[in-house]
């Protein structure tokens, strides 16, 4: 029984006032969040766009990438960017893509067409990267991915899309001989997240181990956000591999290791984690005892510069270190360096500068190369070598190889 009264004049007035208040409120919010400078905005601003997942299951990547970018942004704006003698500051406009291709495309379109950015950073999920790379080519705005792992992003690649870190197809061949040499497995297994990253990881490692005649005896996939791995681990236990690669993000990794220990898989079976598992966060989530003795692939080694960044991150955000922070940090520095090298705000010139750029980043030596590897053509792809580490009883990383 609903009330079917017509609204009296008073009610209509209230509604109109409410609408007006909301409208003014949103405009003000927009104003204060979007336009940090005073009206009569300073003209010398370089606008760079950033699309990343800030909500949804992949949200920690965007959040961490943003942390790295903000720290780099502070450093850059402290000294300023000089183009033809004029001093500029950098502004990074960020949008959430939820790790969803349609959102990423909308975000990038908005950045390019409405916000008029001259370069794009992002994204983190391969599915989104693949969707936005063609846009970079179409509008001739250079895009720099933070961390997409799938080969397809740069193979055969897009003229205007760049990647710093080696893709899955490049890591596997480099690290497989190290693993075989140090750990000597005869059978391997995989427990991976069921998304673009997890699947490409398994694909490339499987292939590379096959080359050394080491078969894969079990392959299990779990959904993002899964918390119950007992079933998967039981299946793995039954298949008896010597090594299990576990691929996902640190909370999943922590749970996997915990539950694996409960089921008695560790230390008989050696667990090697994907790059996330080479992060200190794994230790803080799972505890030193759980992680000790397990291995991981890491994209950066614990250098003094990284320790410095880690302490800044701790100070500013009270958060643990994460490779997305490193990549975000490097990415912005790389872009700005290219802008300075080009001495121009023209995206095409920046693109040319990126192609020739060499930069000693925190993750390694960054250089965008175009090459052929095992029959696949890669474009604008970085190629530094990854590391195999083992976690010690004290929660520190021990370098095993290469």
């Amino acid at each position, binding site marked *: 029984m609903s009330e079917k009264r017509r*609204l009296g004049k008073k009610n209509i007035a209230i509604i109109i006032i409410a609408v007006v208040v909301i409208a003014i409120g949103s405009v003000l919010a927009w104003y204060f969040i979007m336009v940090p400078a005073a009206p009569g905005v300073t003209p010398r601003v370089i606008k760079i766009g950033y699309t990343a997942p800030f909500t949804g299951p992949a949200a920690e990547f965007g959040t961490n990438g943003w942390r790295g970018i903000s720290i780099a942004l502070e450093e850059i704006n402290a000294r300023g960017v000089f183009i033809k003698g004029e001093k500029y500051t950098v502004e990074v406009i960020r949008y959430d893509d939820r790790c969803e291709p349609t959102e990423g495309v909308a975000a990038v379109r908005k950045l390019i067409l409405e916000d008029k950015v001259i370069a794009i950073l992002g994204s983190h999920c391969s599915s989104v990267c693949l969707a936005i790379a063609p846009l970079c080519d179409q509008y001739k705005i250079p895009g720099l991915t933070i961390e997409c792992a799938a080969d397809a992003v740069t193979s055969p690649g897009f003229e205007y899309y760049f990647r710093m870190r080696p893709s899955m197809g490049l890591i596997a061949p480099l690290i497989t001989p190290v693993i075989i040499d140090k750990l000597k497995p005869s059978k391997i297994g995989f427990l991976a997240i069921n998304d673009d990253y997890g699947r490409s990881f398994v694909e490339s490692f499987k292939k590379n181990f096959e080359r050394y005649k080491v078969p894969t005896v079990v392959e299990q996939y779990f959904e993002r956000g899964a918390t119950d791995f007992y079933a998967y681990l039981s299946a793995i236990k039954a298949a008896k591999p010597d090594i299990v690669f576990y691929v996902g993000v640190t909370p999943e990794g922590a749970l996997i290791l915990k539950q694996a220990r409960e089921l008695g898989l560790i230390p008989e079976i050696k667990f090697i984690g994907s790059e996330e598992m080479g992060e200190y966060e794994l230790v803080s989530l799972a505890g030193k005892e759980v992680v000790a003795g397990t291995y991981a692939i890491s994209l950066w080694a614990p250098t003094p510069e990284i320790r410095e960044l880690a302490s800044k991150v701790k100070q500013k955000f009270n958060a643990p270190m994460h490779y997305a922070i490193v990549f975000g940090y490097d990415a912005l520095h790389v872009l700005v360096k290219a802008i300075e090298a080009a001495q121009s705000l023209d995206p095409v010139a920046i693109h040319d500068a990126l192609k020739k750029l060499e930069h000693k980043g925190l993750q390694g030596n960054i250089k965008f190369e175009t090459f052929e590897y095992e029959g696949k053509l890669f474009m604008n792809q970085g190629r530094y070598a990854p590391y195999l580490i083992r976690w010690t009883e004290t929660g520190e990383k021990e370098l095993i190889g290469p």
Partner: protein
Amino acid sequence: MVSRNKSNINSFRMRLFYPRAIRFLPIVVIMVILITLPLYASSYIVFVAAIALLYAIVAAGYDVLLGYTGQLSFCQGAFYGIGAYTSAILTVNYGWSFWQAMPVAVLFVGLISAIIGYPALRLRGAYFAVTTFFLAHFVYLIFLNEVSLTGGPLGFRGIRPPEPIGPLSFEGIANGYLLILFSFIIIFILLRMLVNSNIGLILKSIAQDDVLAESIGINVAAYKLLSFVISAIVAGYAGTLFAHFFGILHPTTFSWFLSEMVVIMTLVGGAGTLIGPILGAGIVTFILEFLRFAPEIRYIAWAIALIAILMFEPKGLMGLLKRMGVR
């Protein structure tokens, strides 16, 4: 259980005849704006408008099920996705043309919805809703795990826009958008005809009280199935359009979040009015886009607004307008 008290049909119809000419003016204006959009708006706006129109199509179809037949369901996303993937697979893997694949995809969606709907619709109210929830998730799992078929999380790429018909090309954002707009207009007209026909009356009577309807000789089960299939087909068709417009398919696009969004849009606009859900689609898309710069609070602000709407005007925007004496 579900009591719908709409103003009775006759007076609603009489109002339609009253200031007829003026009534059409806002629609004409909006149509003109939409049709000429690509001429003056950036492709970002055209893109967002296209996606909003797709949502509007799905929401309008869904309104037949929810607003007119009174069945709450959460699986529009699933049918949207099945339509999209089917058309994509047929065109990319088997070389069909869009104009062959699309009807087949739509029929396929209709078939699946009929098969599922037949047993499912014997359930009432919330039981049905929960089942559709699960269905949507199940279909999503299939999209995610059947990698050989759908590409799984690696995505399904390389979908081409529809082949040109004569001089009409559908390549590019602007043309794709116009195709979607055109589809939207046609579907809206068809649905409007359906809803105002005798069938529409029957559906409304089912929503009011299906036991009573059954007792006066209406084959309730058949009509429920009909409206379920119709809403599924509309969603499936929108899915094919989406696949060929966006070019890439990814399972996350079709998660239950999409179904939830459609329900919310229909609700916000006002279920049971056909126009309501369309407006709802537009409003929701607009607000979410507008709030894109504040990712963390985007959805909270949205959820609070939603609850406020529910509490103060359960009939959504259309209900509000009606109470204010408009229309």
